[in-house]
C-alpha cells in the first residue's frame, strides 16, 4: 500500500513538473504575442502615407514622417553589405575549402568572439577609427560598424553551407581537370548558394534593426541623406530618439516606425525560413 502511494505521488510530481514546463513555453509565446501585438496595433493606428513620404518636422509642427530615415536605413544596410559580403564570403570559403585544421580553428574562434562582441562596442570602435580621425559623424562609419557585426555571421554560415556540399562533387570537378579556384567558384559555391543566401538575409535582418552602433556613428540627420561622409538618419535610431522624447506626436511616430521595422525584420526572417525549409524537404 505504501509503495503504491509513493508511486502515485511520484507520478503526480512528474505530471506537475511537466505541466510547468509547458507553462514556461507558453509564457515565452505569450510575451512574443504581447510585444508584437502592441507594436502592430499601435503602429498601424499611427501609420499613414505622410509617414513614409514626408521628411521629419521640427517639434511642435504636426505631421511629418520618416522618409529620410527609411531611406537612410536602406543605404546603411546596403553599404554594410557591400563591405561585409566579400570579406565574409571569402573567409567562409577559406574556412571550408582551404584552411588547415589549426588555421581554421583559430579563425573560427576569432569569428565567434567577434560575433559575441556587444554591438555598442563595435560602435565605439567605428567611432575611434573613423569618426574621430575624420572629425565628422558619417554614414560611412555607421556602415563599417554594421559590416563588422555582419562579417562573422556571413563567414560562419557560408562555411557551414559549403561543408554540406558532398565531396563527390569536388572529386568530380577535380577529375575533369579544372583548377581548384574554378572548382570552388563554379561548382561548390553554387551548390551551397541556398544556405549562403539564407545566412546573408538573416544577417541583413539583424543589422537592419541594430541601433547601438549607430548612435555615435550615424548620429541621425535632420537634413535628409547628404552623402556618405555626412551624418545620416536611420529608422531604429529614430525610434530610440522619439521614444525617449516627451512629445506625444513623436512617441506615436516611434510606434509607427517600430511597426515598419518589425514588418521588415520579421518579414525577412519568415520568408527566409519558409524558403529554406521547403528546400530541405
Amino acid at each position: 500500500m505504501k509503495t503504491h502511494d509513493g508511486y502515485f505521488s511520484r507520478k503526480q510530481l512528474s505530471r506537475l513538473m511537466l505541466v510547468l514546463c509547458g507553462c514556461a513555453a507558453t509564457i515565452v509565446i505569450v510575451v512574443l504575442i504581447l510585444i508584437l501585438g502592441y507594436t502592430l496595433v499601435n503602429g498601424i493606428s499611427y501609420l499613414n502615407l505622410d509617414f513614409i513620404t514626408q521628411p521629419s518636422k521640427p517639434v511642435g509642427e504636426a505631421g511629418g514622417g520618416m522618409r529620410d530615415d527609411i531611406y537612410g536605413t536602406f543605404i546603411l544596410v546596403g553599404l554594410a553589405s557591400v563591405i561585409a559580403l566579400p570579406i565574409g564570403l571569402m573567409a567562409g570559403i577559406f574556412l571550408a575549402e582551404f584552411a588547415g585544421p589549426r588555421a581554421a580553428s583559430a579563425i573560427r574562434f576569432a569569428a565567434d568572439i567577434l560575433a559575441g562582441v556587444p554591438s555598442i562596442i563595435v560602435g565605439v570602435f567605428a567611432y575611434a577609427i573613423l569618426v574621430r580621425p575624420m572629425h565628422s559623424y558619417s554614414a560611412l562609419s555607421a556602415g563599417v560598424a554594421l559590416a563588422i557585426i555582419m562579417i562573422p555571421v556571413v563567414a560562419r554560415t557560408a562555411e557551414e553551407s559549403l561543408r554540406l556540399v558532398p565531396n563527390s562533387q569536388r572529386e568530380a570537378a577535380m577529375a575533369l581537370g579544372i583548377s581548384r579556384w574554378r572548382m570552388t567558384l563554379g561548382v561548390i559555391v553554387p551548390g551551397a548558394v541556398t544556405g549562403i543566401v539564407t545566412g546573408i538575409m538573416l544577417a541583413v535582418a539583424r543589422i537592419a534593426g541594430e541601433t547601438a552602433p549607430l548612435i555615435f556613428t550615424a548620429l541621425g540627420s535632420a537634413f535628409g541623406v547628404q552623402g556618405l561622409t555626412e551624418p545620416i538618419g536611420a529608422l531604429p535610431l529614430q525610434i530610440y530618439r522619439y521614444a525617449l522624447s516627451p512629445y506625444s506626436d513623436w512617441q506615436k511616430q516611434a510606434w509607427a516606425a517600430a511597426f515598419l521595422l518589425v514588418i521588415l525584420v520579421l518579414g525577412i526572417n519568415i520568408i527566409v525560413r519558409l524558403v529554406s525549409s521547403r528546400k530541405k524537404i
Partner: protein
Amino acid sequence: MDKGRPDTSISADMSDNRNVSRTRFGDIIFSRLTLFFGLLIVAILVGLLVALNFDAWPAIQKFGLSFLTSTEWDPVKEEFGALPAIYGTLLSSLIGLVIAVPISLGSAIFLSDLAPQWMRKPCSFLIEMLAAIPSVIIGLWGLYVMVPFIRSPVEAWLGSNLGFLPLFQGPPFGVGFLSAGIILAIMVIPIITAVSREVVCAVPLTQREAMLALGATRWEMITRSVLPYCRSGLVGAVMLGLGRALGETMAVTMVIGNAYALSPSLFSPGATIASKVASEFNEASGDLYIGSLIELALVLFAITLVVNIMARLMVWRTVSVRGTGE
C-alpha cells in the same frame, strides 16, 4: 571533421606544363586571397582591442586601477569611476538570468521531450522570432507597456508585502534594475532556449529509455538521466545568454532610468556599462571624458570576452560528445 580533399597534384601531373603553371598560379592566388580575408577577421578583433586601448589611454593613465573601484562620475571635475556601472551590469544580468533560466530550461525540455510532434517546429519558430525582434523595439514596448505595469501592481505589491527586504525598498519608479532585468530575461530566453534544446536533444535516446525501463517517471527521467548527461552544455547555454545580457544596450538603456548610484534596491534606477556609454557618448567632450567612456567599453569587452569563451568551450564539449557517441 576534416574531409579528405582531392589532391590537386594528380590533375596537374596529367596536363601539359603550361597548364600546370597556370592552374597552380591561379590556385595560389585564390587560396592566398581567401586566407587574407580570413585573417582580416582576426585583424578586426585585434584592431578593436588596440583602438579601444589607444583611445582609453588618457583615462587608464590618469585613474589606473581606481577606475574600477571609484563610484564618482563627475564630468565637471573630471573624476570618473566605473563601479556603479559594473554593479548595474552584473545586477541586471543576474536578475535577467534568475528569471530566464527556469523559463528557458522548461521551454527547452518541453520542446525536446514533451510537446506533441506537430507543435515542436512552430513553437521553436516562434521563439526564434522573439530573438529576431530588434532590441530598440523591445525597449519601446518595455518603456510604454511593461514599465507602467511593473510600477503599479508589481512593485507596489512587492513593496508592501516584501518591503522588509532591502531588495524591495524605496519608491516604485517603474524604471530601474527590476525592469531592466525583466527586459534582459525576455531578450536572452530565446538564445538559452535554442541552445539548451539542441543540447538536450543531443542526449542519446538510450539514456532516456534505460531510465524509463527502470520504472522512472518522465520527470525523473529528465532530472536524473537527461539533465546530468548534458550539464556542461546547459551551463554553456546559460553563459551564452549571460554574454548577450551583459552587452545588451538599447532596451536596457530605455528602461533602467540612467541614474549613477550603488543601491541595493531593485526598484531604484541605475545604469549599466552599455547604457552609460550609449546615453553619454554623444555629449562627452574632452579626451579624459571620452577616454573614460571608452575604458568602460573596454571593461565590458573584457567581461563578455571571458564569458563568451567559457560558454563556447562548454557547448563545444557537449556537442562533440554527441559527435563521438554516434
